[in-house]
């Protein structure tokens, strides 16, 4: 009796006495998640083939004398770009997933499942294959075009008689993903020499982190995420139905168009620097919804911050678990995400 009550409470902690969201709670939770993110980042900077004490990690940033030049180089030049990349990509994929779920009213929607990530891959690979990838912004741009095209395509496939067919949406997305993965393999076969790294795109990887691409991707991704967050109250209304949102004063068509565009942009940017990292956009919004409730005014910033910590941790796992061999971080996220997808599918 006692244990079953406890069990129930653990299952739905947010349902029992959840009060409506206040600005105070939003700030508190986000501050907590930010502290967590910084802590995880410091740990990620200290762990690797060479272990560096936490105090030296902090010392590398403050210019302390106890830190050796080698340590400083490892932390600032090798590990920091990768850590920043994990933060940006994890945050972006998570917020894109949370927004897509609200717009499509489907907790299974996310950039990888919908094929949007694969669209980004094909864009990036075509750009590199045509050797126009010289300028740092060309690959992200091509990735974005690929992502946005798939977004439009999947939407068209699933849209029938003014209704979105959930099954067609998910199956269409998965099939487009499979098709583009095949296309990527074909392109690799044809351009064998130039695209040795292309395999990395098929199963996300953060090892190619470099300051140049970070400098292009980070500001765009932050701006796009901020633009999504400021619309979060509208996503609450849209999540209860398009007609309901219109009648509550939301310009649904415009909001959706802009949001799909921004979600595709974020996905394209993430893919252009890290390849296809699946399921992050599924796992993180799901966990955040369980912990903090479905209100998007908290769900979006929380997913953004938690997603950053999550990808940092999974990347840490990916590069240390079989050290010195590295496994693609996308394999780790898929190992966690695929079972969760099946669970959510059974539940819905």
């Amino acid at each position: 009796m006692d244990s079953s009550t406890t069990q129930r409470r653990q299952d739905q902690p947010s349902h029992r006495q959840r009060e409506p969201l206040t600005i105070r709670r939003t700030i508190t939770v986000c501050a907590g998640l930010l502290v967590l993110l910084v802590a995880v980042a410091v740990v990620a900077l200290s762990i690797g083939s060479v272990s560096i004490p936490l105090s030296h990690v902090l010392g590398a940033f403050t210019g302390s004398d106890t830190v050796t030049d080698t340590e400083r180089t490892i932390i600032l030049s090798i590990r920091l770009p990768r850590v920043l990349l994990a933060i940006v990509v994890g945050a972006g994929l998570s917020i894109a997933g949370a927004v897509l779920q609200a717009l499509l009213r489907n907790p299974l929607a996310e950039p990888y499942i919908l094929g949007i990530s694969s669209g980004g891959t094909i864009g990036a690979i075509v750009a590199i294959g045509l050797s126009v990838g010289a300028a740092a912004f060309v690959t992200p741009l091509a990735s974005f075009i690929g992502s946005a095209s798939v977004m439009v395509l999947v939407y068209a496939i699933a849209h029938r008689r003014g209704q979105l067919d959930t099954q067609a949406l998910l199956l269409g997305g998965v099939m487009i993903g499979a098709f583009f993965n095949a296309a990527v393999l074909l392109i690799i076969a044809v351009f064998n020499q130039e695209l040795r790294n292309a395999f990395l795109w098929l199963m996300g990887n953060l090892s190619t982190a470099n300051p140049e691409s970070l400098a292009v991707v980070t500001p765009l991704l932050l701006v796009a995420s901020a633009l999504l967050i400021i619309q979060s109250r509208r996503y609450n209304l849209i999540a209860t139905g398009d007609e309901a949102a219109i009648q509550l004063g939301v310009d649904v068509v415009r909001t959706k168009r802009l949001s799909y565009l921004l979600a595709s942009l974020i996905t394209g940017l993430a893919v252009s620097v890290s390849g296809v990292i699946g399921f992050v956009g599924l796992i993180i919004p799901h966990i955040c919804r369980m912990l903090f409730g479905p209100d998007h005014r908290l769900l979006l910033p929380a997913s953004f911050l938690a997603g950053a910590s999550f990808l940092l941790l999974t990347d840490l796992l990916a590069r240390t678990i079989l050290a010195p061999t590295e496994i693609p971080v996308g394999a780790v996220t898929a190992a966690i995400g695929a079972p969760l997808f099946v669970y959510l599918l059974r539940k819905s």
Partner: protein
Amino acid sequence: MHAISVNDISFSYDLRVPTLRDVSLSLTRGEFLSLVGPNGSGKTTLLRLLDRIYVPHRGTITLFDRPLAKYARAEIARRIAFVPQENGIIFPFTVLEIVLMGRSPHSRGTVFENPTDRAIAEEMMTLMDVAHLSSQPVTSLSGGERQRVFIARALAQQPEILLLDEPNAHLDIAHQVDVFNILRKLHKDRGLTVISVSHDLNLAASYSDRIAMLVCGSLVAVGTPGEVMTEDRIKEVFGTSVLVDQHPGGGTPRITLIPSTS
């Protein structure tokens, strides 16, 4: 002053079969009107046009003597609330969270609800008998409870006009009467104009000032319940025989179905 005035509007979803044809209808402020008619006669579509979820292809709609097309979306939401038939909600928002959403047209740029919003939401939850469910996720409620939550959200918009699409569809008889009593009270006390789509002809006849009957996209009758609900017309429109007499408690028409004997 007319609350809503519809002038010769026509609309179709796919441009071949017109859903509504040359419909004209005016409501004075504070009127309670029921829209009745067979399935597919265009009742829901007419409500959608009245709330500018769709725009008529021909004809005009005016809201408080100003063209509906000239209103900003949020301004319509402050004057008209619409409770759709189905709410395919899948995320576990609590009842209070849902009802608070009704305050968003009044938020004027602020992101979070203030204490006034909270008080209004709580008042409407009490009115709709869902206050005890306040912190329950709406996804765990029965169809009828959910229906009352969405009516409470519409009332939280503090609209002047309330559009309801089969508000009684999922309600047990006690709550059907409760909800309609509350709507009548709001319309008497606060001058709320109500347009309700209903398949329950008796409920429509007991509560409405006027009834409008739609058939295949055209209005065939508009008038008091006594004028509209006649045996001949119901047989013609619905294709089924009924007995119409006077309600012993009121004087409004009472419609009794006659089961086929064959």
